[in-house]
């Protein structure tokens, strides 16, 4: 499946200043019974977002109209735990295009990139600055420029550069998908199989 292209994004942010947000929090297991990729956004952060009877909890940020935007800003070690890609589907399904944190769990990072959701890893200090800026003014915008691997607090900074694997960057910029790439080299895979069987 082709993924959405990601070139540059300017948006307000939704802050979740909690560390070690694991994929069970992002999407609890009882919502994993679906057999398609759609609809997970409705249950993003379900146990923080809704009470037992399914009513929105006022104190959770997704229910607070002050905050909105396409960038999720989260505490360090985001996406640890289960490998469920449903976590990335839930975040992307909700409408986020990028997640900013000072540290991401490995599998979550891969899953996001495979779904056109950009994980942007910044320094602890920069993350702290983002949280403070957003808290002070929820209308604060952040620009993520993938081409130049740069994230900037608008309008005048500060900014920081971030790392991304050059191959993954190319995929994100062009909306390419890994499977297409691998299917294209199936001859090479076959040759390898013959040599190693």
């Amino acid at each position, binding site marked *: 499946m082709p993924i959405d292209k990601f070139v540059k994004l300017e948006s307000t942010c939704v802050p979740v200043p909690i560390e070690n947000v694991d994929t069970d929090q992002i999407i609890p297991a009882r919502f994993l019974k679906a057999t398609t990729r759609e609809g997970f956004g409705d249950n993003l952060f379900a146990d923080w977002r809704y009470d037992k009877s399914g009513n929105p909890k006022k104190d959770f940020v997704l229910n607070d109209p002050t905050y909105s935007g396409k960038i999720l800003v989260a505490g*360090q070690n985001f996406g640890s735990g289960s490998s469920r890609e449903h976590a990335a589907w839930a975040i992307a399904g909700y409408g986020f295009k990028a997640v900013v944190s000072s540290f991401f769990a490995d599998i979550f990072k891969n899953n996001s990139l495979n779904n056109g959701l950009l994980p942007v890893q910044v320094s602890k200090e920069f993350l702290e600055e983002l949280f403070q800026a957003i808290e002070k003014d929820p209308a604060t915008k952040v620009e993520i420029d993938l081409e130049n691997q740069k994230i900037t607090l608008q309008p005048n900074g500060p900014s920081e550069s971030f790392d991304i694997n050059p191959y993954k960057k190319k995929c994100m910029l062009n909306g390419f998908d890994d499977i297409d790439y691998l299917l294209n080299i199936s001859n090479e895979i076959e040759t390898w199989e013959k040599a190693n069987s």
Partner: protein
Amino acid sequence: MAGKTLFEKIWDKHVVTKVDGGPSVLYIDRHFVHEVTSPQAFAGLRDRGIQVRKPEKTVATADHNIPTLKQDQPIQDELSRFQVNKLALNCEEFGVPLYGLNHKWNGIVHVIGPELGITKPGMTIVCGDSHTSTHGAFGSIAFGIGTSEVEMVLATQTLLQNKPKTMRINIDGELGKGVVSKDIVLYIISQIGTGGATGYFVEFAGSAIRNLSMEARMTICNMSIEMGARGGMIAPDETTFEYIKGREFAPKGAEWDKAVEEWRQLPSDADAAFDKELVFKASDIEPMITYGTNPGMGIGISKSIPTFEEIEKSTQATFKKSMQYMDFEPGDAMIGKKVDYVFIGSCTNGRIEDLRAFAAFVKGKKKADNITAWIVPGSHQVEAQAEEEGIRQILEEAGFEMRQPGCSACLAMNDDKIPEGNYAVSTSNRNFEGRQGPGARTMLASPLTAAATAITGKITDPRDFL
């Protein structure tokens, strides 16, 4: 040239090619599939109009979303039934072998792979499940993948992967009384944190590891993901070969000898360099228990929960949230805390040795009245063996009931949910908020600690009984 690590030997042998400036194309020897993370991947194949490249290198089981009672009857929950049926339909359409519900080889994916002899040293193994790291106990590269990657492997039998860094964790010396492999791994995670090994593939080594059985080694590799590692592994040795020999899919005859010869070449060379090395002393480890909402929040059972001041400033907010969720006070002792549920099972501690250890402990004793205990074997084979060895009977005499195999309360996708606000001592691997049911409060521990707790009805040091 410096020698190679176990990891590098296997990795290098499986690289088909390398993307310029990008990841490697890694060939996958074995792909395990289950009902929860595969339907969207099969749908992807259908959309592209392609087949599973190597159905014979793929094997499927239903485990995450199945009931652990009345498995012979149709699944009650409509969505679960649909998902489990979907797996059967997909496997049939794409020619993938399935050990579905009620099949004699059905069970938790990370339990059946080893017990059937599918998991072998030197292999690359993946599954859409983070605890695939379990299979690393055999000296294989095994790790969890997401659903897009499941599709990738189904379609091409390869995976695009960046080579992780390597770490070796040595645990030397003798384990104390009542201290088992679950305690070793909870201890390591408590020391390095849930992100302590992120970006690394970890090899566990040292005399304390060498002395462990295969099942105990699996418990350690299983939880390597809980320290953030891409996977964990242990060099194969005589214990490994002994375990595999004679199993259903183990090589036989001359092929066996040849395989063992190859496997003997796998352990890390003496001069191999790791990107990072850590050393722990086995004698520092006591039975462990977690008090918080991630597996890194663990302490020796005789210790008290840290006070607020002892927590690093940057994690204080997380600590506070965790204490609120668990309804614990910083500085509280763990021993004596009230418990409502005890769960024995999961791919961490749902194997026959775990049931044996639990049964040996509770034999001739009685379950405490305030405890609801769920004892869930990891597979049908474990269940059958427990029956054969008289374990079921010992359990029943002590007031425990053994359920049917599955993931069960480890992730509470089925009906096995710990009720809100209740405390569970669990032999599984994750104590996240809501992991065992909305509002459930989980304390991770070994089967021995779980047994001691089930008998007294409160958190109990198993050494009190030994």
